[in-house]
C-alpha cells in the first residue's frame, strides 16, 4: 500500500514529552515531502524562513494561527458549530436524565477551539455544560484561551494529547468527547487506540467529525479552499485532507476495535451525488 501523503501542517510542529516545541529542520520537512512525491508541498515549505536550517518558530507559529483562522471561516460558512450542537443536544439531554451535575464536552485536537467557542457564544447546549478544548499545540491553545477571554466565553483550553484525554475528563459518565477535522491527521494503525483511549474513560459518548472521502468532497475541497483560503499551506492541506480522510468502513472498524463496548455509527450518506450539507460527517459512539 502506498504511504499516505502528508499535510504540511503535520510536519511544521513537534513537541517534546513536556509539551515544549522542538526545533524542526527545514531540510527534513522538505526531504520527507519530496520523498513522497509532494513537490508542490516541498516548494511551499522551501520558501519558509529558516535561520541556520531550523524553521523559524515565530513564523511557523504565526502561520499556524493564520491557517486555523482561515479554517474557522470555512466552519462558520458551513454552520458547523450548529451542526455539532444539533447532534450533541439529545446526547447531553440523555446524560442529564441520569442525574444532576454538569455535563462536559471535550474537544480533542481543538485547534483555535472554534466549535466550543461558538457553542459557548450561542449557549447552544443550555446551562450546566462545561466546554473544554485540548490540543497538543501550545500556540493554538494560548490563542484559543485569549479569544475566549476577549469575548467573555465560558469555555477553557488545555494543552494535551488526543490519545490522553483523561487530563480533561473527570467523570466519564457525564462526558462527551468530540473532534472536528482531526481524525484524518492520525496514522491508520493509531485509530483503534484513539477510540480506545476514550473507551477506557467510559465516556458517555464520542462524536468525531471528518470529511467523507469521495470524488465530490475532493472537488468541493479544491473549489472551496481556492475560493476562500489565502495561505498556500491552507489550500494545499485543505485539498489533501479530503484525499487523506478515512472511509466510513475504516472508521467503523477502528472504532469497534478500540471501543467494543460502544454502539458505533458513521453518519454518512450516499457518495453518488454531492453532499453539500454534510461535508463533515461524524462517527458516533454511545456507551452500551
Amino acid at each position, binding site marked *: 500500500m502506498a504511504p499516505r501523503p502528508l499535510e504540511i501542517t503535520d510536519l511544521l510542529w513537534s513537541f517534546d514529552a513536556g509539551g515544549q516545541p522542538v526545533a524542526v529542520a527545514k531540510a527534513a520537512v522538505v526531504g520527507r515531502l519530496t520523498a513522497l512525491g509532494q513537490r508542490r508541498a516541498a516548494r511551499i515549505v522551501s520558501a519558509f524562513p529558516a535561520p541556520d536550517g531550523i524553521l523559524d518558530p515565530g513564523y511557523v507559529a*504565526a502561520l499556524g494561527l493564520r491557517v486555523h483562522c482561515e479554517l474557522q471561516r470555512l466552519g462558520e460558512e458551513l454552520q458547523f458549530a450548529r451542526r455539532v450542537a444539533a447532534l450533541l443536544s439529545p446526547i447531553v439531554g440523555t446524560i442529564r436524565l441520569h442525574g444532576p451535575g454538569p455535563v462536559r464536552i471535550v474537544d480533542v485536537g481543538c485547534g*483555535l477551539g472554534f466549535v466550543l467557542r461558538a457553542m459557548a457564544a450561542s449557549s447552544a447546549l443550555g446551562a450546566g455544560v462545561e466546554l473544554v478544548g485540548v490540543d497538543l499545540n501550545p500556540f493554538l491553545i494560548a490563542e484559543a484561551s485569549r479569544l475566549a477571554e476577549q*469575548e467573555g466565553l465560558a469555555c477553557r483550553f488545555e494543552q494535551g494529547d488526543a490519545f490522553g484525554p483523561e487530563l480533561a475528563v473527570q467523570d466519564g459518565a457525564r462526558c462527551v468527547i468530540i473532534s472536528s477535522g482531526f481524525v484524518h491527521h492520525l496514522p491508520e494503525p493509531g485509530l483503534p487506540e484513539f477510540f480506545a483511549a476514550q473507551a477506557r474513560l467510559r465516556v458517555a459518548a464520542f462524536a468525531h467529525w471528518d470529511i467523507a472521502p469521495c470524488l465530490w468532497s475532493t472537488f*468541493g475541497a479544491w473549489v*472551496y479552499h481556492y475560493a476562500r483560503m489565502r495561505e498556500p499551506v491552507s489550500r494545499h492541506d485543505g485539498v489533501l485532507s479530503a484525499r487523506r480522510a478515512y472511509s466510513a468502513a475504516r472508521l467503523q472498524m477502528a472504532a469497534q476495535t478500540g471501543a467494543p463496548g460502544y454502539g458505533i455509527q458513521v453518519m454518512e450518506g450516499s457518495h453518488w451525488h454531492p453532499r*453539500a*450539507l454534510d461535508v463533515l460527517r461524524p462517527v458516533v459512539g454511545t456507551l452500551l
Partner: protein
Amino acid sequence: MTPAVAVTLLALALLDGALAGFRASLGRTGLINHRKSDYQAARRGTGLAGVLLTPVITAACIGLLAHPALLGQYARAGKAMLEVYGPYALLMLTALAFYTALNWRLKYLASALILGPFTLLRPVITILGGALGLAQANDPAVAVLAGLSVIAVLMVEPLAGRVWYARN
C-alpha cells in the same frame, strides 16, 4: 455611454468592492462575533473600489468633454461589460438572498452551489467582461480605460487584505 449604463456599472463595481472588502477581512481574527468588523470591511471595500476607480472615471469624463463623439464608443463598451456583469451580479445577489433567507441547516447550499464556485470564477468573469468591452471599443483610449477598470476592481480584495488585514 448612456448615464444608466455608467451608473449601473459603477453601482456593480462598488457592490463588488463591498463584497471584496468583506472577503478580505474574513478568517483573520478568530473571533466568533465579527459582525461589526464585517460591516466595516464592506465599507472599506466600497471606499477602496471608489478610490481605485476615480482615475478611470475622471479620465473618461475628461475624454468625453474633449471628444464628445466618443460617447458611442463608451456606450458600446459599457453595454458589452454589463452583459457579462449583469447576469453574474444577479446570480450572486439571488444566492445571497437565499443564504439570508434559508434556515441555518440549508443556507450553506447557497454557498456550496453558487457563492463559493462563482467567487472562484470572479476574476475570469471580470476579465471576460473587460475583454468584451475592450473588443467593442474602437478607440484606444476607451479600450485602455475598460482595461484599467477591470484592474481596479480586481485589486480591491488583495489591496484591502494588505492594507487593513495582513497578520504576520
